[in-house]
């Protein structure tokens, strides 16, 4: 133990790590009633880290050239030792991240945790969700399969519904009249450098907001009281709370382990879950495969574009909904957070989820 103590002393006298630990980890108190849903943030941090590591590894063998991309992914899957593992972790990980992000957002909505002057936390979180969908979309093109090619063609084509600038916008997104090598180039750059950098920055700001404002206590139990926030900044303290580290951290760790186990279960027991047949065919710009469908988290958007008589209305509805969601903390100003006392909100919450699931299922089978 002596050498470890000496090392900690060495660092502590220079950076004051013991003080940091006492204030920010052990002394960082969480509300006593904090529940399992509060672990999703930590889970997402680990999942994003896995994406970064596997992404860097894949980058060593992937070739961003429309002539070679498909073959390079084939080589990763077949020739490079454990290439299949890192590719599957990356692809399945993206889907699991979307699941975790949605659960995170839904639990925050259910507990109205965006209330109490947490607009910045909500806005950065919502931007992270959208940016992650952007990462999914750009990453989808890289294997240059039939699925990649046509999903990207359909997705970029949707922008054409915007009046006046639509047609130019489609070409601008693609870097040419059709999806081709230029599209691959820009999607690749955005996917491996541009978006991850912005994402890291946003995650930093999001964490800063969470930490600076203080954790929002769950709105449950007898002793919970809705209170009007003060007109000046005040960190929300939880004086009789439990230490974040190690008391609550072990729960974070447990849920992280279960999420990774879930990912591994998909990889080894249902490897084809997120890979339709067209994911294994090289892209052919002259042959549209039948039944081309976006990933499950885009099905709702795909189907809304189809059910409205014109795409512009569909896009408008999607835009309006996303804007409404982004601005929710500014619209919903009541201090009441208990789900039981907010029947209208909870009804809309449940109905919206049901409508989304229904539209997605419809989109899947249409």
């Amino acid at each position, binding site marked *: 133990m002596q050498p470890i103590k000496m090392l900690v002393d060495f660092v502590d006298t220079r950076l004051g790590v013991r003080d940091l630990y006492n204030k920010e980890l052990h002394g960082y108190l969480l509300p006593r009633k904090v529940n399992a849903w509060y672990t999703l943030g930590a889970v997402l941090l680990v999942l994003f880290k896995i994406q970064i590591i596997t992404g860097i590894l894949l980058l060593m063998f992937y070739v961003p050239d429309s002539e070679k991309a498909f073959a390079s992914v084939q080589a990763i899957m077949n020739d490079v030792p*454990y290439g299949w593992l890192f590719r599957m972790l990356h692809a399945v990980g993206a889907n699991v991240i979307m699941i975790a992000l949605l659960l995170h957002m839904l639990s925050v909505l259910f507990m109205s945790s965006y209330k109490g002057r947490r607009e910045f936390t909500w806005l950065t979180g919502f931007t992270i969700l959208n940016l992650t969908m952007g990462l999914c979309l750009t990453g989808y093109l890289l294997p240059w399969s039939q699925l990649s090619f046509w999903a990207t063609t359909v997705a970029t084509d949707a922008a054409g519904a915007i009046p006046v600038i639509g047609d130019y916008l489609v070409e601008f997104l693609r870097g040419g009249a059709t999806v081709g090598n230029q599209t691959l180039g820009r999607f690749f750059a955005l996917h491996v450098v541009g978006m991850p950098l912005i994402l890291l920055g946003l995650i930093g700001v999001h964490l800063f907001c969470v930490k600076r404002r203080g954790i929002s206590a769950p709105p449950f139990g007898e002793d919970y009281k809705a209170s009007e926030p003060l007109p000046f900044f005040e960190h929300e303290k939880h004086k009789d709370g439990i230490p974040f580290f190690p008391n609550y951290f072990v729960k974070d760790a447990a849920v992280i382990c279960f999420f990774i186990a879930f990912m591994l279960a998909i990889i080894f027991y249902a490897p084809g879950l997120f890979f339709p047949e067209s994911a294994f065919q090289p892209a052919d710009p002259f042959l549209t495969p039948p039944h081309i469908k976006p990933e499950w988290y885009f099905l709702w958007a795909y189907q809304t574009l189809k059910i409205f008589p014109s795409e512009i209305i569909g896009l408008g509805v999607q835009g309006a909904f996303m804007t409404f969601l982004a601005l929710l903390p500014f619209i919903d100003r009541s201090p009441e957070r208990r789900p039981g006392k907010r029947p209208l909100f909870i009804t809309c919450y449940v109905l919206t989820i049901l409508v989304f699931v229904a539209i997605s299922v419809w989109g899947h089978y249409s």
Partner: protein
Amino acid sequence: MPTHVSPPQRRKFLFTMLGGLGVLIGAASAWPIFRFLSPVASGSGNDQVVVPRSEVAAGKAHFFDYRGKPAVLLQPTPGNFVALSAVCTHLGCVVAWQDQAGEFLCPCHGGRFSADGQVLGGPPPKPLETLVVELDGDQLKVG
């Protein structure tokens, strides 16, 4: 579990187990990454490298790949063939053949080698490695 075990004692035991699991999980993650990054086996192994005789003109040098490393074939006098490693023994640059001088010059730090690989000047500590070469019909077999 007996009830008299206090939570801190229980935790100590559980953390020890977690430590063990951590080592196993760490190994299970590190091994695939190590294998993923391991260098690819350099193909041909100990095979002879075959170069057509016509590629090597008298007084000229022919550079080729010998088991993954640069090498050079010379014909100093008609019918006489020499094969050398083309990697300078100083810092690993590839030596260049000087037609007029009939010697190698390393472009990095001016090391000079004769046509049979001996050091003529400059910083190289050792001669160029000599490779076995034999003439078989109109083919040169190196190695």
